[in-house]
């Protein structure tokens, strides 16, 4: 059975709903097996206690999105926040910060802008992502919320970024970036939406299965005391 992953669902989706069980049932219906919930202002611990009390086949992870315009700011934030979250993503319009975050082992993934961003991913950054085997995240929220000429601009920017992702063969992740219950989408529906930007159909499934699982394996290896680093595991002491 395929394990679909959505590594970008906001805490707000659960906060606004009266019953988190309804959301978990919907995610199970969509056949997700791994979900990462993004922290906003509130602590995620209370939400995770609630989720753990509901029996489900989905694994939940804590995620934090960091935004900064200077390298020193990102370094400080990473030092403070790294021990408390399973996944840390960095989003920045500054090329120097973006390229530095790719090379830092404490950063799990990079995010490709957001609702307001008109910047596309450059080929140099994409090659650096491939070199450090770090995934870039592509979200569908801006395609859902915008319309008319704004959406056509988003599609154009996304197409340029995806061109560079495909040329450089760097890993990528597709996620919903849902802030609301009605912004959640099934994995195959997200894939069909990205076919509008000429994503090659042979590779697109990797963004929802293979590459997110690679991120999750790193998270689990970090938590495992027997794993020292990539592919090095203590068999017996």
């Amino acid at each position, binding site marked *: 059975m395929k394990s679909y992953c959505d590594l970008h669902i906001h805490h707000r989706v659960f906060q606004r709903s009266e019953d988190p069980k309804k959301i978990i049932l919907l995610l199970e219906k969509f056949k997700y097996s791994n979900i990462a919930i993004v922290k906003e202002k509130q602590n995620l611990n209370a939400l995770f206690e609630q989720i753990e009390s509901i029996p489900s086949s989905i694994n939940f992870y804590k995620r934090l999105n960091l935004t900064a315009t200077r390298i020193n700011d990102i370094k400080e934030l990473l030092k403070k926040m790294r021990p408390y979250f399973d996944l840390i993503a960095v989003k920045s319009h500054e090329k120097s910060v973006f390229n530095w975050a790719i090379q830092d082992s404490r950063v799990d993934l990079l995010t490709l802008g957001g609702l307001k961003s008109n910047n596309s991913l450059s080929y140099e950054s994409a090659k650096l992502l491939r070199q450090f085997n770090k995934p870039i995240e592509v979200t569908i929220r801006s395609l859902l*919320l915008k319309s008319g000429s704004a959406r056509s601009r988003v599609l154009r920017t996304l197409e340029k970024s995806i061109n560079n992702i495909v040329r450089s063969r760097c890993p990528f992740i597709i996620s919903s970036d849902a802030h609301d219950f*009605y912004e959640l989408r099934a994995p195959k529906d997200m894939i069909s939406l990205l*076919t509008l930007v000429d994503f090659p159909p042979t590779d697109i499934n990797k963004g929802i299965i293979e590459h997110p699982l690679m991120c999750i394996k790193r998270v689990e290896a970090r938590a495992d005391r027997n794993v020292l680093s990539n592919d090095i595991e203590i068999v017996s002491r």
Partner: protein
Amino acid sequence: MKREKQRYITFEIISDDVEFSKGEIINAIWKQFTDLFGEYGTSKAGLWLIHYDPTLKRGVLRCSLNSVNKVRASIVTLRVINKRADGNHEFPIIFYVVGVAATILTIKRKYFHVPDNRPKKK
């Protein structure tokens, strides 16, 4: 001219306790498709809502073979449906594509659990 090949897309609407009519759904899908692909693209898609079950909130859309991905993409971007009876109020929904098949018989068997009563060949 050869007959155009078609595909049948089974979808499900996830919403609060609101019932939508067949007309409201096809209007919403058609408007969204026209917004994304224009009038020319919509004419090429051959879209039609064949069946909709309000209790299951499941329906079947017919479209041409070449436009299956476009129809799926436009369905996914639908976020609200207008209900004219309630004063043109917009209700938020999630459109979920359950499956795609080439024949109505497959759709009935797989997604609407209609038993296959055809006599078996010896």
